[in-house]
């Protein structure tokens, strides 16, 4: 099972690499056929990654959230899944050049990490783990897509880049990604609170990773309020999306340098 998981990981890794090249070619070269190839490869990669994580889950006897390799792979999966959902919904492929690059980057990062299957330490033996990290996978994936939309918006600020989608569409996709990510991030925080209450009898402890996740959520809240009440659209909104993704990266990599209650999950 573990060997199959690793094999599927490698296959997903290669497939996603091909998908990335195809997305780049499709976007920059305006190739319809390349775009179709890109989509087919990313669906295949998503399926392989699902198989890899699923078989790892079975092999380890616990959800694949016990070390940084598993986190990186899961977050790559989350980014890929949210992107494919948005692509399916909006029939817009140029976002893929960035989101698939992020997912691919996460897999590259994962492949540099020890891929051993670790047993679950006592503190993590709680089924809330699945939902807690599952929410993170969804919200970070959604925020990565929002970042991609924001970045393309900034690249195409004057609607001069012919091969990029219209600005209005990018602006709206950014928003659509946020309304997936924002409640998921809230669930992440709440489930963390429920877990902390089970484990330590307090629902909030100002733990560094906890506060970093709260900052991420607050930035998303800022984006939503700026949009709904001050009519922020376009460039200003896109800049907020950049900052938001910065907070996601900070929170995600926080295990490595922040210390605190999430520090056990190291490499």
């Amino acid at each position: 099972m573990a060997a199959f998981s690793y094999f599927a990981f490698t296959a997903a890794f290669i497939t996603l690499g091909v998908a990335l090249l195809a997305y780049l070619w499709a976007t920059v070269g305006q190739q319809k056929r390349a775009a179709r190839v890109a989509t087919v490869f990313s669906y295949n990669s998503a399926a392989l990654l699902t198989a890899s994580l699923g078989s790892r889950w079975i092999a380890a006897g616990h959800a694949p959230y016990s070390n940084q390799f598993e986190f990186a792979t899961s977050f790559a999966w989350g980014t890929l899944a949210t992107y494919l959902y948005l692509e399916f919904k909006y029939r817009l492929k140029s976002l893929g050049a960035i989101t698939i690059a992020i997912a691919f980057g996460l897999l590259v990062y994962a492949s540099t990490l020890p891929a051993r299957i670790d047993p679950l330490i006592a503190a993590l033996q709680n089924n809330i783990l699945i939902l807690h990290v599952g929410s993170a996978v969804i919200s970070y994936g959604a925020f990565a897509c929002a970042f991609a939309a924001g970045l393309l918006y900034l690249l195409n600020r004057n609607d001069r880049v012919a091969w990029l989608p219209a600005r209005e569409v990018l602006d709206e996709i950014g928003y659509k990604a946020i309304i997936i990510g924002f409640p998921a991030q809230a669930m992440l925080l709440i489930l963390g609170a429920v877990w902390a209450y089970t484990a330590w009898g307090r629902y909030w402890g100002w733990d560094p990773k906890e506060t970093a996740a709260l900052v991420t959520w607050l930035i998303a809240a800022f984006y939503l309020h700026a949009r709904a009440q001050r009519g922020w659209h376009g460039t200003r909104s896109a800049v907020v999306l950049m900052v938001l993704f910065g907070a996601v990266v900070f929170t995600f990599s926080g295990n490595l340098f922040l210390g605190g209650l999430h520090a056990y999950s190291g490499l």
Partner: protein
Amino acid sequence: MLLIGLIAGGVFAGTVIMQAPASVAASPDNFAAWLAQPRGKYGEPWAALFGALDLYRVFSSLWFRALLAVLTLSVVVCTVNRMPGIVASVTRPTVRVPERLFERAPLRAELSVATADAGQAHAVASRVLRANRFRVVPWQDGDAPAVFADRNRFGKYGTFINHIGIVSILGAAVMGGAFGWRDDGFMVPEGSTRAVGHGTTLSLKSESFDDEYWPQGMAKDFRSEVVLYDDGAEVARKTIRVNDPLDYKGIRFHQAFFGPAAVMRVRDGEGKVVHEDGVALGYELKGGAGADGTPGSPISRNGGYFTLGRRNGLPTLAVWVVMPANIREADPEIPAGSVRLEIFEPRQARPSAIETLPQGETREILGHTFEFVRERQFSGVQISYNPAVNLIWLSCGLMVLGSMAVFYFPLRRVWVRVDPTPAGARLRVAAVTNKDVLFAREFERLTLAIDRELDQHRVNKDGAA
């Protein structure tokens, strides 16, 4: 909006800059001593600047609490301000619109109907909208029958539900802080019983403690068999684990940490046992000055104390029990299997006696006979009581459900107007939207559906004719 930005900035500062532990931040002296740490880490002038801005205890600082209070207030004010407008727009929507809307709306469509009259076209449009889960309100503009239709109008209330949730989370946090309590350092040696305190009549006994490890050396399981007594009567019994606390009337006992304990037996001058109990060696002693003022040992040791007798409100003796922390690291002063006793008399800064005592042996010190009976472990338990915690969960639920209502059930509004023409009717559809691609697509679908239904009508009519 500015407030959210400020709070995000504050929380960020609290994440990046090292924070003094709560126990340190609470005491001015300890906090002053702790400040040496950031000075070493950040150097001047940064350390002084962060200090001046009170960034080492962000989450207990006055400015952060003030920000949260202002946020709560502004959420309440905003919600109350917006409430009447939103309620009115839901309960009394703009049904009648001027004809020019159909010429200028961002989403609009026009169908000319040759074979049906205005009334029939109106009925068709209403039917299609209803089939798409719209609420349909018919109205009349002169001789033109018209329709106002909306969907998900109650989704608008989600914003109130969400903000009520947020405000009540903050309220519940304040309540929990005011009426709840917690004890992070409660230690019970195996076989011993300790009073819980905090105004309760509870006491907790640890029957046994076990720790298990994976072959890789990582912790697999920690568990304590505990028994809870209320006024001396057993009321609960459970094996508590890290993720599985004991809950008794809202007071929760969490397995949190563990360490060595020593069972000590003390007899007075007449040979009567005056003390027989475990002492949790919960203090880690390393470096620093020894209790007798000598430079501390570089060897890690664990220690704990108990007191004997009581005279004039003070214990007659305080007994520190110290043991090497690591059996693999030989301690030059305390052999393995022995404890060192440091015995203090009232108001003395230095111990009156220091003795090393192997297990099973007795020693006469200051009129008492001390015996180190055996080594055991203690259970470190976090005890918490938070009467507002269910309100927290309820509020969290409201917060999430409210935001989902707003996001996933967006309000949709469509107006239809049918003007009779000599040839039949002219049907116009309009919607006001903020550039929503998905709704634009749905609008197109709706218009097509109306057109198709009208076609059907045409065929039927032709067939009948």
